[in-house]
């Protein structure tokens, strides 16, 4: 069966094209920064979803692995003048490897026990970095400022970061989508649903959890490289547990276990949160997180499978598909 280019693909490309045009028309740094954060959060959430959504191992310590990525790339940049582009590869394998190694003894822990271990690891890493002289202790590290440089991933305006983040989120989405439909994805999903069944059909749950951790933590560390290059300041605070929750929420609200879920969740949540943070943080600190929490609680109580879970069973999906089919049909005539 060959893939036909139908209205769905065309619509998607048009949308992508429009998004890519945004920096041409909107020059406000504030709006661009919101979009960059949205793409970044979506990427991190997509990375999380490989372990949390697809494999069902709810990690609440991913911010620590993101932070490790940010720290490693920053230290390499500051001490060895290492370009972040190479760091991306280094960080993927190093952080992926470290996390897979550290978490591998914990994979027979089921459900919330595993989450507890990831919290503990996150706190341990944060604590280590808070007290490590080389990594700037609790004050954190300031990345060197200077002229625009593509090699050093350093720009004065927001637009280049916008495109970087856009490419990152697209690649991340395509990767997650690909894994979801691949042989590996089937193993991960089977492990999530039932480990006994996985065993019974020849899937070694432990092995696939290690693989999922490697990919997921490695990718979130890559997001960390971007974060450090973009914000240009890192401190142990980026490894806090509530930062991990920021990666988890888009996936949960968008729909856990689907590739598009974290993306939709981030597109809805991050602008809202950034907006609230900017407008209310002086008069009502924490209002953005408050809204996060309320949305999370409402979604969990009324639509536990998230927005995508609702969409899959909704009339809206049928209508949308009918409409798209009609578009296709008209074109054929």
């Amino acid at each position: 069966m060959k893939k036909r280019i139908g209205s769905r693909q065309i619509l998607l490309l048009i949308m992508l094209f429009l998004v890519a045009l945004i920096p041409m028309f909107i020059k406000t740094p504030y709006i661009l920064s919101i979009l960059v954060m949205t793409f970044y959060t979506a990427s991190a959430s997509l990375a999380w979803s490989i372990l949390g959504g697809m494999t069902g191992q709810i990690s609440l310590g991913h911010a620590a692995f993101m932070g490790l990525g940010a720290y490693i790339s920053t230290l390499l940049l500051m001490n060895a003048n290492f370009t972040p582009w190479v760091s991306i590869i280094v960080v993927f394998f190093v952080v992926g490897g470290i996390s897979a190694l550290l978490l591998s003894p914990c994979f027979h822990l089921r459900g919330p026990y595993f989450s507890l271990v990831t919290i503990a690891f996150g706190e341990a890493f944060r604590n280590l970095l808070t007290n490590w002289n080389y990594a700037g202790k609790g004050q954190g590290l300031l990345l060197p400022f200077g002229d625009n440089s593509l090699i050093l991933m350093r720009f004065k305006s927001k637009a280049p970061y916008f495109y970087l983040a856009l490419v990152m989120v697209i690649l991340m989405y395509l990767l997650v989508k690909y894994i979801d439909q691949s042989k590996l994805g089937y193993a991960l999903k089977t492990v999530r649903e039932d480990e006994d069944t996985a065993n019974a059909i020849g899937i070694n749950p432990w092995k696939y959890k290690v693989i999922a951790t490697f990919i997921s933590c490695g990718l979130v560390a890559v997001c960390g490289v971007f974060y450090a290059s973009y914000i240009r300041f890192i401190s142990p605070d980026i490894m806090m547990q509530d930062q991990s929750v920021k990666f988890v929420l888009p996936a949960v609200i968008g729909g856990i276990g689907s590739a598009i879920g974290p993306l939709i969740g981030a597109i809805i949540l991050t602008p809202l949160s950034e907006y609230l943070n900017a407008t209310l943080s002086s008069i009502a600190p924490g209002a953005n997180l408050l809204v996060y929490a309320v949305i999370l609680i409402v979604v969990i109580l009324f639509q536990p499978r998230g927005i995508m879970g609702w969409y899959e069973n909704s009339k809206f999906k049928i209508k949308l598909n009918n409409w798209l089919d009609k578009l296709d049909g008209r074109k054929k005539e």
Partner: protein
Amino acid sequence: MENILEIKELSKNFKGLKAVSDVTFSVEKGAITGLIGSNGAGKTTTFNMISGVLVPSSGKILYNGKDITGLKPYHYTSMGIARTFQIMKPLKHMTVLDNVASGALYGRKGYQSTKQAKEYAEEILQNTGLYDKRYCLPGDMGTPFKKRLELARALATDPELLLLDEVMAGLNPTETDEAVELIRKINEDGTTILLIEHVMRAVASLCKKVVMMHHGEKITEGMPQEVMNDPYVIEIYLGKEES
């Protein structure tokens, strides 16, 4: 005839409690063998040891003459052993087709692409009468279909020996007859079957040999009619099952 599976003096203790003790029997290649006995007789424990879920306290399991005692359960599929669970374990958030495709991907067929695996899965679904439900979620189907799904997923791994744990429990007489036919068909296609079953009618019509267990021990084995007419067996089952 050649034996595909030989169980030798198999025992399992749970903290001093003997769940299974010194059970010895064999499964003939190409035939259907039944494992019967009242609740708590140790049938499922025996099954779990044969399929690698539990490690035996003592004894040996030989598969095609090879000692497989204590192997991890996920090695079994590639050797050609597949099982179903008494308590159904469908992959709840995956469609029926994906459930079976998962089995096909990691079974002996060794498919690398999901497309091929899905095609094979569709074939299996057609043979097991689930094709119309292929896009359903397991939770939206009734018990008979869920039982079939267990069977289909195990079949998708292309087994040589199929272990069925009470696939007919909870089915009405018509559904039972359909299940019997399905199992017979699978067997005729060349798969050896070892099944645990309470439905005596099904056991009698399917099995070439039955092994009777009680309180963790093997009481007797033989042709279904012989075993069921054994006075001791009748005594155990009296008032519990009509045979």
